[in-house]
């Protein structure tokens, strides 16, 4: 699996297609952050969590679509099946989001006058990660092989994201944005909600990987 991840990473880095979602993320979270210190510590993470969901989806589509369709068949054969390749696409996307989340977690703690406690940083980090990883599940579902053209993938992701935000505070994404946008009752209850959402995000990714691998086998790409 490590060799497969290394290969996919080398290929994605050479494609430079990871750049737009990463740049968009840093730009948007920078703009929101520029509003300055406002209220409780966790509120600073609300905006980046909001943006991480579509950015995670975009990044996952970038990774899923990086390889040529015929090459995907060669890679799946060499790796030992579609499940391994699809899982590697998801894991690489999740791992790729982590440094972005780290930056947007630490940044407000350095730049604002507000004192940050470790628990706030940890809860903020995990909450953003839950949103980003849910985005990865959406991206793996709506990239190749299920949706073959990137234009349709982006449109479908936009629709899913808008729909998710309409549903309000349901886990994993809505509940995190709600949590970060308001004053949490206690840090303990906040941590419990965050862990729940993170677990749901991981379950969603696993489910999507299994489903998408089935589609890949049926279509042979």
């Amino acid at each position: 699996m490590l060799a497969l991840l290394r290969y996919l990473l080398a290929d994605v880095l050479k494609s430079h297609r990871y750049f737009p979602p990463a740049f968009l993320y840093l730009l948007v979270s920078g703009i929101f952050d520029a509003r300055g210190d406002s209220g409780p510590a966790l509120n600073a993470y609300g905006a980046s969590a909001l943006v991480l969901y579509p950015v995670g989806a975009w990044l996952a589509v970038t990774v899923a679509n990086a390889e040529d369709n015929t090459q995907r068949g060669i890679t799946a054969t060499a790796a030992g099946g579609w499940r391994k390749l699809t899982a590697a696409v998801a894991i690489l996307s999740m791992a790729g989001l982590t440094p972005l989340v780290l930056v947007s977690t630490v940044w407000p703690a350095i730049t604002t006058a507000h004192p940050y406690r470790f628990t706030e940083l940890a809860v903020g980090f995990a909450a953003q990660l839950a949103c980003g990883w849910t985005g990865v599940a959406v991206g793996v579902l709506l990239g190749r092989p299920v949706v073959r053209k990137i234009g349709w993938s982006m449109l479908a992701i936009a629709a899913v994201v808008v729909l998710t935000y309409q549903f309000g505070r349901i886990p994993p994404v809505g509940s995190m944005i709600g949590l970060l946008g308001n004053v949490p009752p206690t840090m303990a209850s906040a941590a419990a909600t965050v862990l729940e959402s993170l677990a749901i995000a991981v379950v969603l990714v696993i489910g999507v990987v299994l489903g998408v691998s089935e589609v890949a086998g049926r279509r042979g790409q």
Partner: protein
Amino acid sequence: MIVLERVGKHYRRGVPVLRDIDLTVPTGVATVISGGNGSGKSTLLRIVAGVLRPTSGRVRGRPRSIGYLPSPFPAELRLSATGYLRHFAAIRGLPASRAIGHAREVLDRLGFAGDPDEPIRTLSKGNMHKVGLAQALLPSEGLLVLDEPWSGLDHAAQLTLDVMIGELVAQGRGVLITDHVGHALRLPDRRALVLTDGLLHAQRDSPETPAVTVELTGAAEVLDTVAGLAGVRGSERRSGGVRLLVDRAVSDTLLAEALRLGASVRTVTSPERVV
């Protein structure tokens, strides 16, 4: 040893590409599948390689390691030949130094001419194909699945590839190959199968009965009669004549009969044979 049992495949809204395929790919012999364009050869190979799941039937005993060359080899690869082969050796769990050394040897023998450190997409089509072959032939024990391995290769590389496939077969590897141009007829140890209308048949000709190509002109009914004579393996109507593939053993008799019937002989060619 991989075994396909009553394997069928159809795509959505489409006619079946494969119907009831029973196939065993033994080791120590090259299994060659021929058939026209669109006959389903590539689909069958993708099922054997594990890229595509059949709609019906099942596949048993697929080895863990499969060297797979699709046709055509992808043209838009960003990695260099060296990087690509290094990564694929690692993905297949092969020791790096031995695998890279072996891949270099394969490229050298095939006459790879290009910069192995430049992106594969900047290489010529033939050289890209050679990188694909080097990837499929990385040193492991498993099955080889090669889709049109000769296509796009220059003549010298085609002959070298014959020798390489011969070596792999002699080492006891299982090899499954598609061939629509008849190149595999040169392979010494081979089992020939034909895919038509989604069904697999044993091919009747064998290397012990070489063929000659005969081109005749004449009246249509005369040519039809000749095409129906014993010893004719294949025929193709062309403008004003017919091209026949004839068993060499009966070619003289057939030519005499054709002339007697009133046809005239335009050419007789014997395919080049490799010793």
